[in-house]
């Protein structure tokens, strides 16, 4: 019997050591905010924090975790960087289908935690492991910068004067 610390709570779980954390969270503990996308650490939908670091839970054997603290999307809002990222995600209206966004937010929160003012290269490095098929990347980049600086970052192109166009 393993004991996992998830979102500040201890969960005893009776599962094989080689079972990936993702399925323990989803199917055993019942926290379904962490998503299954590929099973081979290629898409980042399953990203959680282990002692504040972003890891891909779909390939993380649960027996290797020990007493490190697991944080999932359900509780990342309790951390300062997670709270900022979630608020910026709302302000910029990042999400589309939303399925990858748990993982995107976990990766972004970990980035902000260690790099409070990330530049484009930092964002590329931290976020390129998270695929979004809806193509929310433009707004993800804007939201991370907004979370870091507090300055409004969204493109101001929503409503344009129709120069050269029939109105």
């Amino acid at each position, binding site marked *: 019997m393993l004991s996992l610390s998830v979102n500040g709570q201890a969960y005893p779980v009776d*599962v*094989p050591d080689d079972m*990936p954390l993702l*399925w323990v969270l*989803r*199917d055993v503990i*019942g*926290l*379904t*905010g962490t*998503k299954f*996308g*590929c*099973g*081979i650490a*290629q*898409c980042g*939908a399953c990203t959680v924090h282990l002692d504040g670091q972003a890891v891909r839970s779909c390939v993380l054997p649960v027996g290797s975790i020990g007493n490190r603290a697991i944080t*999932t*999307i*359900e509780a990342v809002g309790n951390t300062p960087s997670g709270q900022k990222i*979630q608020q910026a*995600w*709302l302000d910029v*209206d*990042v999400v*589309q*289908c*939303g*399925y*990858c*966004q*748990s993982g995107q937010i976990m990766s972004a929160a970990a980035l902000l935690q260690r790099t409070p003012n990330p530049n484009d290269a930092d964002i*590329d*490095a931290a*976020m*390129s*492991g*998270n*695929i*979004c*098929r*809806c*193509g*929310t*990347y*433009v707004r*993800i980049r804007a939201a991370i910068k907004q979370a870091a600086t507090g300055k409004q970052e969204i*493109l101001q*192109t*929503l*409503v*344009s*004067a*129709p*120069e*050269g*166009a*029939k*109105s």
Partner: protein
Amino acid sequence: MKIGPDSPQDKHDDIDLGRRHALQAGGLAIAFLWVGGTGVASAMINARRQPGDAAAALADGNPTFAPNAFIRIDTSGAVRLVMPSAEMGQSIYTGCSMLLAEELGVGLDQITVEHSPPSDELYGIPALGGQITGGSTSTRATWTVLREAGAVARTLLVSAAATKWHVDPATCTVDRGVVHHTPSGRSLGFGEVASEAAKLPMPDKVQLTDPKDFKLIGKPMRRVDAADKIKGATQFGIDVRIPGMKIATVMACPTLAGKLAAVDDKAARAVPGVVDVLRLDNAVAVVGDHFWAAKQGLQALKITWDHGVNANLTTQQLRDALADSARHGKSIVARDDGPQPQGTLVQSEYQSPMLAHATMEPLNATVFVTADKCEIWTGTQVPARAVGEAARITGLPQDKVVLHNQYLGGGFGRRLETDWVEQAVAFAKQVSYPLKVIWTREEDIRHDRVRPMYHDVISAVLDANGRPVWYGYRTSGGSVLARFAPPAMGKDGMDSDAVECVAEIPYDIPKGKVEWIRHDMPPGLVVGWWRGVGPTHNLFVFESFMDELAHHAGKDPLEYRRALLQKSPRALGVLNLAAEKIGWGSQPLPARVGRGIALGEPFGSHVCAIVEVEVTPQGEVRLRRAVVGLDCGIAVNASSIEAQVQGGLLFGLSAAMFSDITIKDGAFEQSNFNDYRNLRINEAPVIEVHRVINTESPGGLGEVGTAITAPALANAIFAATGVRLYKLPVDRHLLVQSPDALKSVVSAAVHAGRDVA
């Protein structure tokens, strides 16, 4: 209570028949225009029709006031809105809510949204012949009816208040869920008049808000589903948990149309947590206490497949046959304006690959079959069709099949199919417990219903100035429509999707001939709707060729197009807008940097994309920037329009840069994101979306960005390198500047390696 057999008879069924013709439709959207006038087509989405019986009312929570299938208000004043379309990221829940809320007189912060139950009668989109979310039709089809639905509800609520106060309803106003009578200073909340409003007769005519007075429509509104999605609290199909539920994962024969010959499940059943091994004639499922046990069990199976007719099939065989069809096959003519005139003939051939959807949420369905009921939880673009299939498989009547739609973790056309639901029902009816079937990513890609491959031959006759006086187009490919909706096929068996955006073009080219050569794929290679479908390749071919013609004439691609657009003001408008915003021609670009234009009128909108790329000496393509000029008529939600176009463009860029489903030994060679590459954030350009402001009817949006992308990319690559791409995805080998460029990278890598060592 207003729901029940005594609901007012609907006198307005015919309103939708007229509206269908307002849709500038093609492809999936044109599908059912041909069956117009039938009973099915007339009994669809309507501002006044309600769920028809007591059971439906009970399932709906017995709302106090439910004047139609979209609005429920109880005595507390809580407003629930039922969404006719499925939410798969396109923000249609927000758009539909805005249309309803604008006329009802509530704010988006005052409502909750719900998935609709399966019902063609209540939620059918007339242009699609049913409760289908696809073809970029949702806003076009609901733009009027949902505002009318909101106005019907508001009219009844105001009447109830006015009656109570003995005043003229015209002297009352509505604001944020409250009816006011300003002259007397009285107010009543919607909840306080809901019971009385439910007893009033349905108003025949309602007044819709003048667009200049819109409070919500046209504004950039935040999504109604965002708050849960950023907390991991949104329930997608894969998140459903039913008491007693077991979890299965499956493998169908990797060879297309192959069958299951035998399976040895001894080792699988010995895996801890495995509870069952189930069989269909072409697939095996392992059931576990959790997904991991099921997956371990699946890997422990010893399966023997009967590979069947496709055992030796390859992509090259398909491509060769398709090319032969395009060049020599008997065609169905979509357009023919008479004999080809004299002049200089220019001709090119283009090829487009098969594409997988790869929705982020792998396909899944949870199904509980009992003796007299089949209950399904899944995210689907076609809830009513899924119910029909489940009834067929279980032998139960349709009213014994209950489907709970869910938020979709991406659709892109994949969830217009029902194959995974059918499979899950077939497995679930073998067991006594609720069964959640989750496809692995590998299964999801290997058994996708791909966008068809195409081979297109395009030609033009030019006058002495290089201006086209005739164009010819022969396109060859499989038909999605022929399988999805056989009655929707047109004259002589024409598939409107096959020639969409090429049979009618914005350019002033006096004559043309457009032909489709139907080329069915082998059994088991099922082609499907994929965001943009026909226009994705027709625009790639046509707009690449327009660039070829401009080059041939020695003209700037922008000027060349402009000269042909004098009769298409909306197309010219978006071309000029995009060119101005990117600063076309304003300053010279660096070496191996180029910009490419693509212009089109897909899905009832008008769009121009200009993509700027840099091609490295080694042939890598870097996407630097994209600017879009868009005319989609009246905007409902300006924010989601921008998001849809950005996302659509990236979806198209991802495919054009990387994607190609290939077949070897009758099976797809790609299976996960390692070999079916997708665009990542470090590869994504900034995308500006500039919109023409006007009061035209709304155009479609979900597929517009995707359809216009590939030609803009290919034209940019041509501008940067002089290399014309006749085949997608981008072949980097063709773009290498010189063999030395590759050598220098190799030596640099070796050098770097030494430094590290």
